């Protein structure tokens, strides 16, 4: 017999395979939203403060990288290092699309500070992937809170 008080506990301990658990948000949706827009995965899960901090950090890092005239990598250049850089940049989701659309980061890197900018942009993308995976873990119940 299940009482009213037991029901939420049963619902939140359900296993998962991609279904919504506890928070009501499907893990894949938290992952995709978190990748597309920094912090959006945590926002979907109702974690406002974390979402704000993640968004500020990732967008801030990406914006500083662009402001330092860092390079935004393109696909299919044939250079393995460029391909790795592209994979990192792609992690920033919509920010990468925006940068490509507006032609940011297309000038040649000539000074050390611009090279720092390139690293800021790549690391912002990688951090966004870490944040999106964290949102997935929260939504699937793999991470407690």
């Amino acid at each position, binding site marked *: 017999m299940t009482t009213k008080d037991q029901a939420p506990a049963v619902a939140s301990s359900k296993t998962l395979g991609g279904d919504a658990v506890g928070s009501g948000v499907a893990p894949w949706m938290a992952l995709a939203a978190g990748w597309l827009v920094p912090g959006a995965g945590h926002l979907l899960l109702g974690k406002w403060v974390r979402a704000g901090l993640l968004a500020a950090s990732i967008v801030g890092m990406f914006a500083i990288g662009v402001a330092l005239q860092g390079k935004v990598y393109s696909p299919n250049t044939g250079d393995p290092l460029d391909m790795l850089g592209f994979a990192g940049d792609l992690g920033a989701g919509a920010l990468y699309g925006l940068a490509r659309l507006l032609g940011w980061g297309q000038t040649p890197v000539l000074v050390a*500070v611009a090279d720092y900018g390139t690293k800021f942009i790549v690391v912002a993308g990688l951090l966004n992937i870490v944040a999106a995976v964290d949102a997935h873990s929260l939504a699937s119940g793999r991470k407690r809170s």
Partner: protein
Amino acid sequence: MTISHFSGVLLFSLFTSVVFGITQRAEPKMMAWFGALCFALFVCGTIAASWAMWLIKH
């Protein structure tokens, strides 16, 4: 825009530590501690590596 090397280190450490703190710990208090630890390690590690390179050169 241009920044000094040390400002670059501080900004990089700050942003990275915030994300590491939030994603690698479950409790808010532990997040703050881990973020602060990461920040200190990033900055101190960079300064230590800089001095090591200076010593190698001289």
